[in-house]
């Protein structure tokens, strides 16, 4: 790996600790929810990062279908995998926030439900990648990624219609956010985006290496078989 990687690593670590300090100490305490509101500084940036990664996955899959280059296939795989990790965090921290504020762990609220469905779609994408035989995986996965992305607006609209018929507690919709809180939120988002970039980078290198090793294995079995039969 080249020099940029450790530099980015140190920068990200610094940024994350600064963002943590901001979230726990500098950000003003919310009046009604108290300290619990600070979960937002991890929850919301993770959600944004996950959505960005899923968008990257969609774009990379489209590029792969047109150009058939392995690099965009790896980008699609990596962004989906890391996106699922961030999406899992959203789904775990959401209920931890909901419990003290709403008094229940889970509610079939619009955003929770649609995030869960999104998570399910990308899990099925990763499962497909695991279960298909190596040669066809990229094409099949790219196709599924496009279907998944097409599905996203439908998920949102259907759950929105569904929820407007059954009113439920909604996250403090509308209302202006304190500029200091917004500031902390954005810093945390920046920190987590850098962190995501860092993970994606290492995952990308790992996948490249893995493919090289697989190729070497295939080559070896080709060259070895005549020698052993001799």
């Amino acid at each position: 790996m080249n020099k940029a990687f450790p530099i980015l690593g140190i920068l990200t670590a610094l940024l994350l600790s600064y963002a943590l300090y901001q979230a726990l100490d500098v950000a003003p305490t919310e009046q009604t929810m108290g300290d619990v509101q600070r979960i937002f500084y991890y929850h919301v940036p993770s959600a944004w990062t996950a959505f960005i990664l899923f968008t990257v996955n969609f774009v990379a899959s489209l590029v792969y279908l047109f150009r058939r280059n392995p690099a965009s296939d790896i980008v699609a795989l990596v962004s989906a995998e890391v996106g699922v990790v961030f999406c899992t965090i959203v789904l775990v921290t959401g209920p931890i926030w909901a419990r003290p504020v709403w008094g229940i762990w889970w509610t079939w609220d619009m955003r929770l439900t649609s995030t869960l469905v999104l998570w399910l779609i990308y899990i099925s994408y990763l499962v497909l990648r695991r279960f298909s035989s190596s040669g066809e995986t990229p094409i099949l996965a790219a196709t599924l990624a496009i279907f998944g992305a097409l599905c996203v607006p439908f998920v949102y609209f259907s759950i929105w219609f569904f929820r407007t018929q059954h009113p439920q507690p909604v996250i403090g919709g509308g209302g202006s956010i304190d500029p200091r809180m917004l500031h902390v939120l954005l810093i945390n988002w920046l920190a987590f985006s850098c962190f995501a970039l860092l993970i994606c980078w290492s995952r990308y290198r790992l996948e490249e290496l893995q493919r090289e090793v697989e190729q070497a294995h295939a080559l070896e079995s080709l060259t070895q078989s005549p020698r052993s039969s001799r």
Partner: protein
Amino acid sequence: MNGYLIAAYAATWIIHIAYLASLMRRYSRLKHDIEELKRAQT
């Protein structure tokens, strides 16, 4: 500090570290593979 807050932040990092650990495991397995390949070639 609030227990829920600590739980949420801890959960976030546990998930991240678990994923990173799985990457490390895959990497060490690959390294092992590469060494075996090298030995096979010589």
